[in-house]
């Protein structure tokens, strides 16, 4: 499915689409207030961008350092070249521990690797413990936003889902009541799980530790109750030193939700006595992206979701319209690197307004990369009618005479055509808009007559 048709579907329910837009705009506004509350905001962005640029130039070195230090700390480090390898590593740990039920805190990487269906196929029950993620899991849906997984659902929807799945009162939409029901339900799962999976927000080669940020404390609850902690990270999640957290944690929370700090920023360095920590380093296309000069800095992303909240397209088309694990502007520059054909409409799902680049805490030039992906995609597509018309247009615009003649014909045609043809369904412009009134002469013609 292409983005335009998915977006059109989403917009059919205009009221709901409007609500979605307002809800995410509210998050963007919270982010504005919070980011403007600290005078050094732009300085922090510059620093973060610089640190990440540096990491990308020495990624191999830092990854090996991380492995070394983490191993010294007693963490078992695994390398996965792709999603399949990642999933197999997780499964082998679970099999070794004879574990049939796990809890997982939010990890977009495991979504990217489609870990849940893989484990379920092998008889493992996976429970996502982030509230929003549990909600979409009940619906068998992926998250529609990387920070706010169930942002597309209203209180009423959640009330219905919980009534069906958790036996809450029908029609009770009270958030406290519903959250409490989820809490009781999840508590039971936490208590039974021998293995807990988390993502990783930052991994630090200096100390061999990693940091997981959650607002609900669900990562900590899962990890502390389980015997084994499996942490899954994309290889780009490195920051060289612990002190760099002073830059990134301030940027992450403010950009994501407008909070000054995420509620729980938990550092994991070595397993408690009798317990295990496994850290899986996943490539899955990242080194390939690193090799693409124009697109490599997309790997600086810290997954704050600010570009989604600010994007006028995302807000009005919803996360699912992108059909990719990471939706929104950042998803539209990451996904074509994974499958250029499948995600070919995503870089065009933008007006190149640039809001994403200005909101990005690590200064990724997202809209410029969208433009660059368009160039790559049309090349990969080979011959197309659109391509032909562009060549034709260039033929007209390179010749002043051809331009003058075609302009005249265009205006004359528009002037004489009856409205029934101009507002024909085939004229997409005219569906929701009038066409401009046609002047009797172009500026060029007027100038020639009156000024030269």
């Amino acid at each position: 499915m292409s983005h335009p048709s998915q977006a059109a579907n989403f917009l059919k329910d205009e009221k709901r689409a409007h609500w979605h837009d307002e809800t995410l705009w509210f998050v963007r506004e919270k982010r504005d207030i919070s980011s403007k509350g600290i005078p050094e905001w732009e300085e922090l962005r510059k620093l973060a961008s610089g640190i990440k640029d540096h990491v990308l130039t020495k990624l191999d070195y830092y990854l090996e350092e991380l492995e070394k230090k983490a191993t010294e700390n007693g963490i078992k480090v695994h390398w996965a070249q792709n999603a399949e390898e990642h999933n197999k590593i997780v499964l082998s740990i679970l099999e070794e521990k004879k574990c049939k039920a796990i809890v997982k805190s939010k990890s977009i990487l495991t979504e990217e690797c489609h870990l849940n269906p893989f484990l379920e196929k092998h008889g493992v029950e996976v429970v996502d413990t982030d509230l929003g993620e549990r909600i979409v899991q009940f619906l068998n849906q992926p998250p529609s936003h990387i920070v706010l997984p169930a942002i597309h659902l209203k209180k009423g929807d959640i009330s219905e889902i919980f009534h069906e799945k958790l036996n809450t009162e029908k029609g009770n939409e009270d958030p406290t009541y519903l959250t409490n029901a989820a809490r009781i339900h999840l508590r039971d799962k936490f208590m039974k799980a021998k293995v807990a999976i988390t993502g990783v927000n930052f991994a630090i080669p200096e100390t061999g530790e990693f940091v997981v940020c959650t607002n609900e404390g669900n990562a900590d609850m899962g990890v502390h109750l389980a015997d084994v902690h499996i942490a899954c990270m994309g290889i780009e999640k490195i920051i060289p030193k612990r002190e760099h957290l002073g830059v990134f944690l301030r940027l992450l929370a403010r950009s994501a939700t407008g909070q000054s700090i995420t509620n729980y920023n938990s550092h994991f360095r070595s397993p408690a006595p009798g317990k295990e920590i496994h850290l899986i380093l996943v490539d899955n296309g990242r080194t390939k992206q690193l090799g693409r000069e124009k697109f490599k800095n997309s790997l600086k992303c810290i997954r704050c979701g600010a570009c989604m909240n600010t994007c006028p397209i995302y807000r009005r088309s919803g996360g699912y319209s992108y059909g990719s694990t990471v939706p929104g502007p950042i998803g539209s520059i990451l996904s074509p690197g994974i499958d250029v054909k499948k995600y070919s409409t995503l870089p065009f799902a933008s007006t190149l307004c640039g809001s994403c680049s200005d909101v990005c805490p690590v200064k990724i030039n997202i809209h410029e990369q969208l433009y660059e992906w368009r160039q790559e995609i049309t090349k990969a597509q080979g011959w197309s009618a659109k391509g032909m018309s562009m060549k034709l247009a260039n033929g007209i615009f390179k010749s002043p005479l051809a331009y003058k003649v075609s302009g005249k014909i265009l205006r004359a045609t528009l002037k004489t055509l009856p409205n029934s043809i101009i507002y024909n369904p085939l004229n997409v412009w005219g569906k929701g808009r009038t066409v401009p009134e046609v002047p009797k002469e172009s500026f060029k013609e007027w100038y020639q007559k009156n000024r030269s």
Partner: protein
Amino acid sequence: MEVALFIPCYIDQFYPNVAKATLELLEKLGCKVSYPMDQTCCGQPMANSGFERDTEGTTRQFIETFKSYDFIVAPSGSCVLHIKEHQPEIDDLEPFQKEVQSKIYELSEFLTDILKVGTVKGSFPHKIGFHSSCHGQRGLRLSSSSELNEAPFSKAKDLFAGIKDLELVELSRKDECCGFGGTFAVSEEALSIQMGKDRLADHLEHNVEIICGGDTSCLMHLQGIAEKSHKPVKFMHLAEILNQAIS
């Protein structure tokens, strides 16, 4: 000051009044203006559709037409940004291309930074909503961006500041995109229309008489939607308002 006027193709064909206003305004402010007759298009529609590589002929034509002028001024932020950032490199015209890219200015930018007019003196007794087009705003930095932690500024608003009885409203969403986006307007039609409707609603909720902007393409899109739903609001380019106010 001698200035070459670049009039983007769609303004030339459909909005000659915007071009005339730009010409007259620059003349009133003391510029000697030429309009090179061989100009066509900047190439943006093709490049933004993913065919930058096919705009070599168009780009060559543009450079040849404008290379001998000291300043190039255009009433469109979007086209100026394209020339600065997205023209394909033409090897045998390299020094000329670099020069053209550095001496082309969007109108409000030229008035503010080169002519240094400060504000324009005149009268225009109307309530106006200003649409900051994205390419002018975030591309050319003609006004502050609401995402950034920076002191607010706007070149267009500074120009309006000295005009008597001109009331500029503060919009709820200061710099949201209108949804035009070139071929986006057609390829993502549903989204484009919804974005336009929302942008329009913001202006109408503030009871503006005229929606003004520095890019006729955004205005054309918004006007098309307003007219289709019979909304009583007028549209004028920044050049038209300044030119009218001054006289």
